[in-house]
């Protein structure tokens, strides 16, 4: 049993597609916002997978940097969205 770049990209594609589905399908905007971290998770996983398998000389820190940046950006986006919805929406 082994894992390659194609398997990582398949999982990343699944996360991005499910995130896009959640963002498009939910009628409630705050719930649709939860799809964005899923898409960011897929993108971060693709970055980490490419640096793990495609770059010569083993794992490179740059892919991790991008994954960290995307994780922080997704949390900040959810915080911003929930904050804006808290001013405009109903409980």
């Amino acid at each position, binding site marked *: *049993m*082994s*894992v390659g*770049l*194609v398997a*990582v*990209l*398949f*999982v990343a*594609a*699944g*996360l*991005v*597609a*499910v*995130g*896009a*589905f*959640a*963002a*498009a*399908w*939910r*009628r*409630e*905007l*705050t*719930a*649709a916002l*939860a*799809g964005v*971290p*899923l898409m960011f*998770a897929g993108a*971060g*996983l693709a970055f*980490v*997978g*490419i640096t*793990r*398998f*495609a*770059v010569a000389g083993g*794992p*490179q820190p*740059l892919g*991790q940097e991008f*994954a*960290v940046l995307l*994780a922080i*950006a*997704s*949390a900040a986006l*959810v*915080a911003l969205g*929930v904050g804006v*919805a*808290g001013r405009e929406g*109903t*409980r």
Partner: protein
Amino acid sequence: MDSLHAIGFYVSSGVSLAGALGVALMRRRDHRGLALAVVGVGLAGLYLTLSAGFAAAVALLCYLGAAWLLAGRGYRAVMSASGPVWRQAGAVGAGGLLVLLAYSAFRGGFVNGAFRGGTFGTESIGRLFFGHDALATEAVALLVVAALAGATAAWRARERQR
């Protein structure tokens, strides 16, 4: 990658994809928050099996925080103005996106062409981004962060003027 890591990768993949489906399909907001936390746990496992321990720790922290925000008391519902036709079109588009991305992942070299770095494809683009042109990639990331911060500042300034 040895068998233990491979098993960890596939288990973490299943956990994260199941959590993602929960985020997309569950009705209650606390259940959606829990599902997002499950996605964070699965994603951290995936990063760990890919030798990215620091990214795993940060992702786990950020996704647990986002899950807490989505399930917490500050949550308010804002209904979308888009009709069911647009939502169904978006769902079909997400399915098309999955097919396109899976095809690209399977093929690797998604166009026939060559450049000075060799054959054009996912691996060669990754080598260029993270090896040869690392500084340019960092500069683009910095520009994106600056644009996001500027947009947030502009929005706040407009809100104050109201």
